[in-house]
């Protein structure tokens, strides 16, 4: 197993993380360092545990054993108060966007500011319109999520994730359900916002190999473990058999992919 040595510089440090659901050991000793100011993309066949790992990183799930340190705080068994403190540093983009469908785009993006800050109404409006412009949604703030295309919903959800200027951005399959053109534009958007704010980004993606272009580092998961991690160049040059098989689209479990994901990545 390849592993980045400089733990001290990493924003997120995962050690020997294990989690079992029923009889299935979904995470079976995950070790991963996510360095600051870079985009780390977690890839792997479906069922390898990558989404479950991300749900541990954003504290929606708790592990059976192992440890997670986020920005210097051990969150493995954090109290809800500590967990909420760490969550203040996170921006999370969910697979389906998870916009509140009872609210307009403006209210959705303003929501974290309205609920969690003392900013004035005018300051919130300024910040929301600014971030909407950045993700290319100017003029859309009065629309409801159901009135927008999937790609626009993703952009709005990204705006909501960024509006509190988080330190760490977590993206769960941000391009699921999008065609290749929109996939590329979301990837570019993630890259430009990451660079603009100097964010640490963790992304779970099935868009292999397109996602390599926007990633700094790749972590390849297989069977509940991170089998391989390193810079894009290091990882793609590896001779790891599972990874090469995965790249060739023959990875075990591939046929179990939900239809939406298959449709989302035509030509594979």
């Amino acid at each position, binding site marked *: 197993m390849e592993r980045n040595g400089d733990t001290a510089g990493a924003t997120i440090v995962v050690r020997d993380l294990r989690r079992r659901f029923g009889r299935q050991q979904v995470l079976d000793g995950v070790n991963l360092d996510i360095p600051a100011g870079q985009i780390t993309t977690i890839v792997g066949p479906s069922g390898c545990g990558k989404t479950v790992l991300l749900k541990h990183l*954003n504290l929606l799930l708790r592990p059976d054993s192992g440890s997670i340190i986020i920005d210097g705080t051990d969150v493995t068994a954090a109290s809800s108060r500590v967990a909420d403190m760490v969550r*203040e540093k996170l921006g999370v983009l969910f697979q*389906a966007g998870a916009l509140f469908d009872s609210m307009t785009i403006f209210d959705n993006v303003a929501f*974290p500011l309205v609920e969690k800050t003392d900013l004035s109404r005018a300051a919130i409006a300024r910040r929301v319109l600014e971030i909407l412009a950045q993700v290319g949604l100017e003029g859309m703030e009065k629309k409801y999520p159901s009135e927008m295309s999937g790609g626009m919903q993703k952009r709005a959800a990204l705006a909501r994730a960024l509006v509190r200027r988080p330190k760490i951005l977590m993206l769960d399959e941000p391009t699921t359900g999008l065609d290749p053109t929109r996939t590329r534009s979301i990837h570019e958007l993630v890259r430009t916002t990451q660079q603009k704010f100097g964010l640490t980004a963790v992304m779970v993606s099935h868009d292999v190999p397109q996602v390599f272009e926007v990633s700094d580092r790749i972590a390849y998961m297989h069977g509940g473990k991170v089998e391989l991690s390193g810079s894009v160049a290091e990882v793609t040059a590896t001779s790891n058999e599972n990874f090469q098989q995965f790249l060739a689209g023959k990875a075990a479990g591939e046929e179990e992919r939900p239809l939406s994901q298959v449709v989302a990545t035509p030509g594979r």
Partner: protein
Amino acid sequence: MAIAGMIERLGAAVIDGVITLGNFVMFLLSALIYVVAPPYKPRLLIRQVRTIGADSLFLVGLIGLFTGMVLGLQGFNTLRRFSSEGALGTVVALVLVRELGPVLAALMVTARAGSAMAAEIGAMQATEQIDALTVMAINPVQYLVSPRILAGVISFPLLTGIFDVIGIGGGWAVGVGLMGAPSGPFFNGIAQNMTGHDITTGLLKALVFGLVVMWVCCYKGYYAARMATGVSQATTEAVVLSSVLILAWDYFMTSILL
């Protein structure tokens, strides 16, 4: 072997049941804690009082009217056999205030607002909106459940009061206006025979029903399976369980409070 397997399955079912019951109770307790714990969000509460209460007014009034009318009709025809038409007002008012008002109003609000609530929260769970609240460091129970439970406790007694008054009006219209029962004894009977205890019992029932219905409907939505059928199943279960609990609690409370 077969017996051991059966015992094992029975044990697993019992443990599952106990865990579910525990979750159910813990869900209410945490929601109640967030009712009293700051930060307070009056905006959320007012919106829910509107959804559960104000938006149900027409339906509750309509059902109250027809219930009172049928009570006036049946009551008049029955009482006439005993030449006691003068007791019509007392019968209609007591039946409405003590029993039918709280129970029927609660059943109606369950069908109208409770089902929608379970579906809404279930859909939010299915589309990760509840996870989104959590990662924004907003407690979903505090944000979604507590205002609804408090709004239920506020709205149900008010709706019940309105149901009772409109129902008595309906009973009067049919019994006195249509069938010719004497009008004076209708209201005199109510004034003489209805006690404060009758009214508080009815409103207390409504208050408890408000708590139970919102608790059940929010719980079923919150723990809905994360798929379309999960939402529909949660909605059905919420309405069925709420209705059964309303009637069971009604008997239980009547026997204690009578």
